[in-house]
């Protein structure tokens, strides 16, 4: 946007809830940020519509007490995130103000804390030589942020090509110190510090290309990794009625996934759930980097449901921008948003307030476009320097009334490639995680790139095995339907066997206790082992005279295998349950 010499000012002329109407005395841009000076408190707001010399701004705060005539100062920039070392481990609000440095118990209006610690010294190591030709996103230097190599880059806002004129020697610097000077083709000099700003609603494009994803992203959740895997740079969504386990599942993924940086956007959900992360992550061990705490690789963006609604929309964009920043450093980023429905609802509230023509269920007409645009910012990218980085994005969706035929779910289905549908029925019968194995899918499983990767990383016939597991589940469901219609003795024993074999897959692979230290995270090798064990059992022929013996027999099989799931992999205990399993199987096995 244009940088006018002195930004415009204005005066409030109308207030409806958190929408302020402002008479502007100069140029103003769509989505420009402004501050409404309410007594001695600045209230941050974003312009969302301009009509007849008036700017309509959504205020990121309560407008209680606000009066017409209040002066407004426009900022000549859009809603931006401040990017630099020191983001990791921090807890931000939706606008990237540091929650940790705010005063008092309550969130005070206008208490806008800085995103980065400006006093802290960072050990900087240059990565580029003077004279080098550089472009946006190129790495100039590096600092260690916790254990993550944090690259200092040519600012994203710079377009075109530059010559690196000078770069500081290795040493300690603050984020706002100049560490490099660039010269543009026109001969203009630009000072580069370790921090930069980027407008959150625009995608960072500092990369060469976005290839198709091909590598599995291990989450340790069996029903995902084994049956419907997500990939590095992939997208997925988890719709489910309230209480079906969206948050528990996402939090398990945030703890266990194989990522360098994890960004959790708590978007319009419960404060207590965020507190859980605040309290637990500094204590919990990062499973991928022994000796380090989870918090060291995590950033939390909290706009809980009681925080200002307008900032809810901003929060997901802030989170995505931070993800893009770390991706540009060649890192593997996992972004989780719970719940994207709250963000859509925030859009709906604003659009209704502005009396726009509503689309289905009173959501804005362009909801679908907004959602796909957001999902499209995820992905794996190849950087100019040959490195690659990725953002894997998984969002939850909270469908009204638990009905998947509603605008947010339907729009998201078009945008995301993995669909993890949580079923009320499974949740009710405590079959957690409640991902419906038959309705859910991962489109990536059809990618030849991923198939090849799985064949090399797990086993040559792995994809085939996954198909067999799914088939067993499907046939088990059909058998169950038949048994329900015709009665236990109205079908042959084979139906019962088919059903119970699917129950073995369900109990041993699908069901997983997120609160058990061992069961909650299953590494790939162990997933393979259990999948093989289950498939072997499903291949067996069993001898039963009547259906009555089938249920108790398989209950014992399942119980034995659950005990295996609860034991340390390949431990003595594990082996002894396995031996017990073999004995039980031998009772009924025929060749």
């Amino acid at each position: 946007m244009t940088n006018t010499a002195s930004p415009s000012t204005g005066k409030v002329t109308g207030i409806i809830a958190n929408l302020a109407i402002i008479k502007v005395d100069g140029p103003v841009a769509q989505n420009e940020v402004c501050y409404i000076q309410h007594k001695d408190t600045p209230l941050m707001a974003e312009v969302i519509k301009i009509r007849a010399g008036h700017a309509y701004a959504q205020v990121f705060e309560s407008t209680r007490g606000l009066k017409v005539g209040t002066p407004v100062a426009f900022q000549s920039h859009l809603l931006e995130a401040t990017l630099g070392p020191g983001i990791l481990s921090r807890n931000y609000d939706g606008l990237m103000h540091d929650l940790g440095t705010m005063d008092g118990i309550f969130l005070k209006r206008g208490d806008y804390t800085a995103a980065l610690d400006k006093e802290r010294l960072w050990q900087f190591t240059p990565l580029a030589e003077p004279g080098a030709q550089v472009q946006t996103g190129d790495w100039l230097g590096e600092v260690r942020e916790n254990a993550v190599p944090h690259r200092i880059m040519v600012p994203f806002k710079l377009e075109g090509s530059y010559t690196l004129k000078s770069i500081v020697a290795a040493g300690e610097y603050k984020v706002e110190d100049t560490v490099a000077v660039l010269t543009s083709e026109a001969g203009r000099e630009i000072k580069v510090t370790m921090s930069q700003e980027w407008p959150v609603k625009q995608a960072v494009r500092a990369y060469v290309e976005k290839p198709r994803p091909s590598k599995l992203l291990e989450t340790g959740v069996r029903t995902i990794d084994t049956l419907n895997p997500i990939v590095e740079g992939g997208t997925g969504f988890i719709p489910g009625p309230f209480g079906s386990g969206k948050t528990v599942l996402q939090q398990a993924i945030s703890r266990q996934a194989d990522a360098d940086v994890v960004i959790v956007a708590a978007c319009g959900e419960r404060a207590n759930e965020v507190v859980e992360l605040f309290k637990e992550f500094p204590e919990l061990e990062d499973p991928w980097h022994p000796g380090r705490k989870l918090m060291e690789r995590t950033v939390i963006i909290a706009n809980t449901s009681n925080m200002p609604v307008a900032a809810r929309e901003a929060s997901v964009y802030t989170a995505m921008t931070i993800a893009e920043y770390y991706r540009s450093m060649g890192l593997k980023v996992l972004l989780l948003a719970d719940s994207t429905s709250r963000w859509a609802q925030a859009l709906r509230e604003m659009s209704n307030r502005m009396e726009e023509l509503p689309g289905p269920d009173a959501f804005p007409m362009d909801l679908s476009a907004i959602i796909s645009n957001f999902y499209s910012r995820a992905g794996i990218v190849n950087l100019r320097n040959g490195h690659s980085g990725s953002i894997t994005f998984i969002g939850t969706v909270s469908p009204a009334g638990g009905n998947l035929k509603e605008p947010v779910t339907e729009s998201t289905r078009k945008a995301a490639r993995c669909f993890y549908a949580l079923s009320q029925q499974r949740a009710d019968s405590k079959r957690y995680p409640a991902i419906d194995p038959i309705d859910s899918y991962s489109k990536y499983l059809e990618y030849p790139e991923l198939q090849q990767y799985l064949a090399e990383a797990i086993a040559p016939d792995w994809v085939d095995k996954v198909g067999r597991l799914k088939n067993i589940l499907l046939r088990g469901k059909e058998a169950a339907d038949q048994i329900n219609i015709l009665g236990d003795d109205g079908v042959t024993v084979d139906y019962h066997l088919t059903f119970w074999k699917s129950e073995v897959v369900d109990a041993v692979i699908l069901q997983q206790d997120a609160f058990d230290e061992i069961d909650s995270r299953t590494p790939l090798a162990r997933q393979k082992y259990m999948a093989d064990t289950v498939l072997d059992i499903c291949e067996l022929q069993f001898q039963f005279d009547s259906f009555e013996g089938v249920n108790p027999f398989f209950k014992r099989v399942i119980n034995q295998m659950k005990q295996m799931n609860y034991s340390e992999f390949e431990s003595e205990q594990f082996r002894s349950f396995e031996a017990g399993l073999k004995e039980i199987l031998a009772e009924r096995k025929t060749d």
Partner: protein
Amino acid sequence: METQAFQRVYTKIEQLTKATCTLRAQDVGNEELALVHGRLAQVVKIMGDEVTLQVFSGTEGIPTNAEVVFYGKPPVLNVSDDLAGRFFDAFGRPIDGGPEVQGEEREIGGPSVNPVRREQPSEIITTGIAGIDLNNTLVTGQKIPFFADPDQPYNQVMAMVALRAEADKIILGGMGLTNDDYLFYKQVFENAGAMHRIVSFVNTTENPPVERLLVPDMALTAAEYFAIDKNEKVLVLLTDMTLYADALSIVSNRMDQIPSKDSMPGSLYSDLAKLYEKAVQFEAGGSITIIAVTTLSSGDITHAVPDNTGYITEGQLFLRRDTEIGKVIVDPFRSLSRLKQLVIGKKTRTDHPQVMNAAIRLYADAANARTKLENGFDLTDYDERTLEFAKAYSNNLLAIDVNIDTTEMLNTAWNLFAKNFSKAEVGIKQEFVDQYWVNA
């Protein structure tokens, strides 16, 4: 709130709708309170010098030359220890014949607690009711509603829970309470000798419905005073939140907003969340726990009010009449306490989580058996045993008249397991089976 000298008085209303009036006025703040023709009203919209006010009791009979007096401040409550033992209306005015409360004036509906200043809830609230303590354990700082049909005894259960919960203060926010229910609460609290721990804000069916909108904020402002200033454990009872939501929809319809599902305003989620999220555990020990009631219409939980509530609260408790045993039980299927895992097996015996899950799983098997029976199929031996188990489980544990401690609940469950099932059928982690299995 008396008229004071500096207050501005206007006498020319330009527009009147059922719920609002509009006039020209200067220097008015958003959400400011005013008195219109002697009725309380609040600023909901300002356009230039045109100010729109929502009149809580409706505009019937208000003339265009009515007197409009602006207070220059949003709704407030005077807080002090003198609140204890008192009954107030939705505006915080005494209805018990007592004097006005002296104390610090606080705006109601104030800001949210910074999430990083919250403490993780970890203190168990015991009620003696196994349907709650065993299956849906409550924790201080939690927010949870009863989802109940209008004819279920939710007010009785809630009063019982409140009195057993060992709270320092119980704050009742009654919205659209019938006079009988209001008197019921008053009597139960009096009989229990608990009056000094109770503060009540009541809007009965005799009061204008829109006034209800202030009740939860009044109750929660009082709660914050005791929880923060006094570090007390505060329990807030909100009944009935469906009637609160109805008032929201009345207002938004009268203001011509586009309704979303079930003619509720599009902001219903945020409106409800703002209240429920006041539930909090503080580091200094004070806490606010919210137990609410959301009445359902013919059991429909997909209706916008229970649906949005479910997405906000930390679980929900369903009451159901079990015809088999003829008692009201806490339904183990749809009921859920999200925060239970913070305490079960930690503040209670370590086998608690597994016992709880196993019992519910077996109870689910019984439900399947019952379906089979209804469809005219033969039952297996296992089916028969699950039915046997379910009946005893319902009677000895789920019924709301059970009053035992958690360890006894667990022992009762182990007894029922051993009586009806084999170890493998129960499917609990071996170490617990070794320790607690009841050998006949």
